[in-house]
C-alpha cells in the first residue's frame, strides 16, 4: 500500500547522441539529458578525430606541413591552405606575385562555395528535405572536377604554395570556371525555391538557437555563425589578404541571430563568393605565379631536373628547411567555417618551434549547449547544422 501513497516519479533520460550518429556531422558526441522531448542539458564531447596536427607541424618544415592543413577541415582544404601559406609568408617576410594572389583568392572562393554548399545540403537534409541536398551536391561536383583539373586532387588539394601557387592555371580551366560562375546564380535560385520561403523550413529555423550579437562576440564565434547575429566582422574585409582588397563584395549580416538568419547569411555568402570569382577571372593579371625569393621558395621543378645548383638548393630546402627569421606571427583568414588562425613561433630553424591552429569549429562546438538547452531534440539537430562544424578541424 505504501507504493501507492508515493507520488509518481519521473526521471530524466540521458541519451548519448554520437559519436556514430547520422546528424552529428562526423564524430561529435553529445550527451543529452531529456525531459520527454525537451533538452535539459547538453554536453558536447570532442576529440574523437584528434591527430595531433599542431604537434606534427613542429616536426616538419614549413613546406611539408602544408598537406596537414588539408586535413583540418577536409571539405574546404583550399581555404586552409591559403590561410596557412599567408601566415608562413608573413613569417618569412615574402609576398606572392599579383597573379598568384588573384588565383588564390579565386580558388579560395571556390573552396568556400564547395564548403557552404555541402553545409547547406546537409543542414537541409538534417531538417528532413532530401532534394536540396542532391541539388547542392551536383554543384559541388563541378567545383571538385575543376579542382581535379587544377591540381589533380579533388579534396586534399595542397595547391597554394609558400610564395605563390603550385602551377599556373590553364585557359580551359578558366573557361569552365566562367561557365560555372554564369550558371551558379540560377542554380542557387533553384535551390532557394525549395528552401528559403518554405513554410516548414521557416518553422524549423526561425527563432531557433537565437544568440545575441554581444553574446556571440563573447563566445568567440566567427564567420557566418557570428554574422548571423548581426556583427559585421569578416577577416577578408578588415584584415584583407591576397587580392581581397581589390575585389568588390558585400558581407551579408543577419538580424536576430537565429538559425534562419545564419542560413540567409551563408546563402548570401555563396552569391558573394561567386561574384568574387567572376571579378578574379575578369581582372586576372599576367605574370609569374611564384615569388622571386629563392631562399624561401622551392626552385621550379624543370630546373631542378636539369641543373645541379637548383637540385642542391631544393635538397637543402626540403631536408633542412629555410632559414627563418626568429619571432612569432599570427595570421587569421576567413575560411567557410569562420576565422582560421595560424600562429607560429619561430626559433630560426626550418621548422616551427610551435604551431598553433585557431580552429573556428572548436569554438562553435562549445556554444552548442548555450543554443540547445531548453529546446527540443529536433532543435539540437538544427543547431548542430547551423553552427557549421567539421570535426576534423575541431579536433585537429
Amino acid at each position: 500500500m505504501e507504493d501507492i501513497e508515493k507520488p509518481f516519479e519521473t526521471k530524466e533520460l540521458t541519451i548519448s547522441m554520437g559519436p556514430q550518429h547520422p546528424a552529428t556531422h562526423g564524430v561529435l558526441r553529445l550527451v543529452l539529458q531529456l525531459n520527454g522531448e525537451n533538452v535539459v542539458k547538453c554536453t558536447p564531447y570532442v576529440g574523437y578525430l584528434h591527430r595531433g596536427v599542431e604537434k606534427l607541424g613542429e616536426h616538419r618544415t614549413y613546406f611539408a606541413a602544408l598537406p596537414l592543413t588539408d586535413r583540418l577541415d577536409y571539405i574546404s582544404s583550399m581555404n586552409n591552405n591559403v590561410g596557412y601559406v599567408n601566415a608562413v609568408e608573413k613569417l618569412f617576410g615574402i609576398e606572392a606575385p599579383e597573379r598568384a594572389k588573384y588565383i588564390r583568392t579565386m580558388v579560395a572562393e571556390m573552396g568556400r562555395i564547395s564548403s557552404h554548399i555541402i553545409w547547406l545540403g546537409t543542414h537541409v537534409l538534417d531538417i528532413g528535405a532530401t532534394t536540396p541536398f542532391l541539388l547542392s551536391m551536383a554543384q559541388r561536383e563541378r567545383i571538385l572536377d575543376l579542382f581535379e583539373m587544377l591540381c589533380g586532387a579533388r579534396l586534399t588539394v595542397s595547391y597554394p604554395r609558400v610564395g605563390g601557387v603550385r602551377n599556373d592555371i590553364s585557359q580551359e580551366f578558366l573557361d569552365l570556371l566562367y561557365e560555372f560562375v554564369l550558371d551558379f546564380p540560377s542554380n542557387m535560385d533553384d535551390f532557394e525555391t525549395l528552401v528559403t520561403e518554405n513554410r516548414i523550413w521557416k518553422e524549423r529555423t526561425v527563432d531557433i538557437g537565437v544568440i545575441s550579437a554581444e553574446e556571440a562576440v563573447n563566445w568567440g564565434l566567427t564567420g557566418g555563425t557570428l554574422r548571423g547575429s548581426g556583427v559585421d566582422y569578416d577577416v577578408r574585409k578588415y584584415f584583407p589578404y591576397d587580392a581581397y582588397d581589390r575585389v568588390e563584395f558585400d558581407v551579408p549580416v543577419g538580424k536576430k541571430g537565429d538559425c534562419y538568419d545564419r542560413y540567409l547569411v551563408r546563402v548570401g555568402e555563396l552569391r558573394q563568393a561567386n561574384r568574387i570569382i567572376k571579378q578574379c577571372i575578369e581582372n586576372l593579371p599576367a605574370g609569374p605565379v611564384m615569388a622571386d625569393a629563392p631562399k624561401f621558395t622551392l626552385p621550379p621543378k624543370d630546373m631542378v631536373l636539369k641543373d645541379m645548383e637548383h637540385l642542391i638548393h631544393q635538397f637543402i630546402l626540403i631536408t633542412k628547411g629555410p632559414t627563418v627569421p626568429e619571432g612569432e606571427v599570427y595570421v587569421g583568414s576567413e575560411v567557410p567555417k569562420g576565422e582560421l588562425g595560424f600562429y607560429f613561433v619561430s626559433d630560426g630553424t626550418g621548422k616551427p618551434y610551435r604551431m598553433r591552429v585557431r580552429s573556428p569549429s572548436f569554438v562553435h562546438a562549445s556554444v552548442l549547449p548555450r543554443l540547445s538547452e531548453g529546446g527540443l531534440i529536433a532543435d539540437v539537430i538544427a543547431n548542430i547544422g547551423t553552427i557549421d562544424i567539421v570535426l576534423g578541424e575541431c579536433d585537429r
Partner: protein
Amino acid sequence: MISSVTSFLASFVGEPMADMILNIVIILIKVAVVIVGTLLHVAYATYWERKVIGHMQLRLGPREVGPFGLLQPFADGVKLFFKEDIIPADADKPIFYLAPVIFFTSALTSLSVLPFFDGFAVANINVGLLFLLAMSSLGAYGIVMSGWSAGSKYSFLGGLRSASQVISYEIAMGLSLVGVMIMAGSLNLTEIVRAQYNYPTGFYAIPQILGFFVFFVAMFAETNRLPFDLPEAESELVAGYFTEYSGFRFAMFFLGEYTGMLIMSSIGTVCFLGGWTLPKFVMEALPFLSELPNFVWIVVFLAKVYVFMFLFYWVRATLPRYRYDQLMNIGWKLLIPLALVNVVFSGTLKIMGWF
C-alpha cells in the same frame, strides 16, 4: 462449373456442407490473390518511389538489377531475407518478436475489406470503414511495442512519438471521414462507392473538400511519411522504433509501412475519388464502357491509388520535416477543428436535404 463442383462435393458430404467448403475455398483463393497482389504492388511501389524520387533529384534510381532495374525489389527482398537476425541483449524478447508481426498483420488485415472492383472484397462487411480505422490503430501497438522492447533509447523515443502521432491523427482522420459517412449513409465501402457513382460529381472530393484536405494531411501522418516522419526521423532518432531490427523483421516493418501507404491511398480512393467507378456523366457519354466486365475496373481503382502514391513520393522529395510540437499543434489545433466544422457542415446540409 461451380454448380457441378458443388453437386460433386454434395455426393460425399451433403448439400449444406459442400456449400460451406466451397465458400471457404473461394475466400482462401481471394485472400491469396489479394495478399500476393498487394505484396507485388508494395515491391514495385518501392521501385517506383526510387525511380520517381531519383528523377526529381537529378539521379536515375535503380537501373542495374534486371532491365531498367526492374528486379531491384526482389534483390532487396532476397538480401533482407538472408541478413543476420540480430536481437539486442537488452531486448524484451517475446515482445520484440511479436511487434513486427502485429504491425504487418494489422496492415494486411485491412486489405480484407477493400473493394477493388464491384463485388470483389474479401469481406464485404457493413462496418468496413470502422474496421479500417481500427486496424490502422492496431498497427500503432506494433510500433509502441517495438519501441519499448528493443532496449534502445532511440527506439523508445521513436515509439513514443509514433504512438502519440498515430493516436492524434487517427481522430482527425476518423472525423474527416464522417462527412463521407453522412453523405453515403453507410459504412460499407462498396456502398460508399455506389453512392458516389449516383452523386452528380461522381466523387465526394468536390463537396467534401474540407474533409478531403484533412484526410490527405492525416494520411501522411498515419503512415509516418514526410513531412511527418518524426518516429523514424533519421537525423534525430537514427531510425526510430525499428533502429534495432534487422533482416526480415526489419523487412516486415518496411513492408507494413508501404502496405499502409497503399491502404491509406485506397481509403482515399474509395471515400473521396469514387473507387473503381468513373463519374456517371462519363459513363453516359461513353456507353460502351458499361459493357466491360467487372474486373476491368480494377485498372481505374489502381490508377487512382497510384495518384495518391505519387503524391506521397512527391511530397517526400519536396518538404522538410516538422518538429514534434509543431506536428501536435497541427493535429489538435488545425485538423481536428477543421474536421469538426466539416462534420457540422455536412450534417446541416444533409438535414436540409442538399446532399
